[in-house]
């Protein structure tokens, strides 16, 4: 597996920490999935005082890599400020960079994203940019200093899966050495399998697990789906073809007439 800014992850599952019915259920979802990364969204109002610390302490106790994110930020300035706050709170250089450009689809403002990625990289951050499957934008992000790309599968929280398989495949082909993460839009474990079959390194999801009726079971299902996809992709799958190819030989079969 490709490494993420020098860190080898034990698996490619990155799980969000929002929207669970309770922190106890959140913890059991992490235990069941054995996810290697927890993403945490920080609000500007979050802070260092006691009440603000209670929840972060629970996240730290998960004992996984923490990837703070700038969820809900709509401008470069806001995202940069939030990233600095996250570095203080979690003592990590990692930042998942989200600069939202459109309120209804929550799709990234790719221009602001590149700008913020440049500022943060120069400031010593290791940026995980939430982007689209656009190859030119991806190129710009790498120029800005990103060493990881996180294209969306579908709009955040939509559960639609991999909306543009062609685009995602092209991205994998264009950036064979860059760690690629499907971020957002996954709803079902089968979609995670598909992401792995496309050769992606990891998936990042939150709503599909947190909003499931049984988050811990769904988390486990995604973990298994990820394994299935990775195993399958590594086993040199057969090529699809139009013509039937019987698995038992026809020649030599007895004539019954």
């Amino acid at each position, binding site marked *: 597996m490709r490494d993420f800014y020098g860190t080898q992850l034990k698996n490619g599952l990155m799980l969000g920490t*929002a929207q669970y*019915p*309770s*922190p*106890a*259920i959140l*913890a059991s979802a992490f235990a069941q999935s054995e996810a290697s990364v927890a993403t945490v969204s*920080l*609000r*500007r*109002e*979050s*802070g*260092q*005082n*006691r*009440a*603000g*610390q*209670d*929840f*972060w*302490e*629970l996240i730290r106790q998960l004992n996984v890599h923490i990837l703070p994110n700038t969820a809900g930020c709509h401008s470069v300035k806001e995202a940069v400020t939030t990233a600095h706050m996250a570095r203080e709170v979690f003592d990590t250089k990692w930042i998942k960079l989200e600069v939202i450009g459109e309120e209804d689809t929550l799709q990234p403002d790719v221009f602001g994203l590149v700008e913020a990625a440049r500022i943060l990289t120069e400031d010593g951050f290791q940026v995980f940019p939430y982007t689209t499957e656009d190859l030119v934008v991806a190129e710009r992000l790498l120029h800005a200093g990103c060493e990881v790309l996180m294209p969306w599968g579908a709009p955040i*929280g939509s559960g639609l899966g991999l909306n543009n398989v062609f685009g995602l495949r092209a991205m994998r082909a264009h950036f064979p050495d860059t760690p690629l993460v499907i971020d957002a839009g996954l709803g079902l474990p089968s979609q995670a399998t598909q992401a792995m079959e496309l050769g992606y390194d990891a998936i990042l999801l939150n709503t599909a697990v947190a909003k499931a*009726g049984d988050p811990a079971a769904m988390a486990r299902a995604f973990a298994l789906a990820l394994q299935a996809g990775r195993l399958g992709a590594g086993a040199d799958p057969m090529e699809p073809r139009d013509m039937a190819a019987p698995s038992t030989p026809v020649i030599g079969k007895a004539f019954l007439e």
Partner: protein
Amino acid sequence: MTDVTIIGAGVMGLCAARALLDRGATVTLIDRHGDIGPHACSWWAGGMLAPFCEGETAEEPVVRLGQEAADWWDAQTDAVHRCGTLVVSPARDHTELARFARRTSGHRAVTGTEISTLEPDLGTSFAKGLLFETEAHLAPRRAMADLRQSLLRDGLKTIQDDADPQHYAAHGLTLDCRGYSARDALPNLRGVKGEMLILSCPDVTLNRPVRLLHPRVPIYIVPRGNGIFMLGATMIEGAAGSHVTARALLELLSAAYALNPAFGQAEVIEIGVDNRPAFADNLPRIARDGNLIRLNGLFRHGFLLAPAMARMAAELIFDTKTPEVMHENPA
């Protein structure tokens, strides 16, 4: 005669005082502010006695124990209204409604026509909804004032003091009902920030609490009578601020506006913010350490669960019956 000191005069402390007085105890209620007020979480409660709706995300004990609340409060105050809860969603979010229905019980589906009969002021905006007929709501501040009055009539003694529960426990049986202020003794207690508004909008009449489901900003609005409404509530983990954010105001008010544009004319008469005390599973706990019994972690279910918690505390004291929510070591 059993002497009990209760520290914290919020909803948990008051309910515990009632349960213990009813069992013949002599009860002293101590609070650093003396009386209930904006410093207390329960001051800002929605007052929904909605155990079935809460079942959407809460664990089973909340649904079961919460069913004691409506009868209990009805016996203490006339501030209780038993008109059910109406749950609606905008047309594009009907999947939210279907999920809410799957994950809760005690409801029946209602059509748009029924919704406009139940709540004429919602007009024809909603084509589908769920009615939780057995649920109730109350006016929290009046309910607590009524309860406090009846407790005083029945011999409750009150003291204003910033009391250390350990100090009182050295002298006799003590109940710590301080909510989030007890975090020093309960390090696993966390605060979940909530923001709410009280609106005056005489143009709108609602007969029961209405929950508007939305994938991003679910809200509820509880009628307090005389054109007064409580609009709530955000739930923010890891928030520190003691003020309402502009975003919370925007989200809450836009959702109310979506429910009925007449709320655009409402006057905002109060803005509330507080930290709900919660343990990791969002379930309440009773913990005993010698003479000191701590009742805490009621999360967003203060009025819903305090009656059952008070009953269990009384059973622990008088019947030595171990409560199901007992935790020897909640810290």
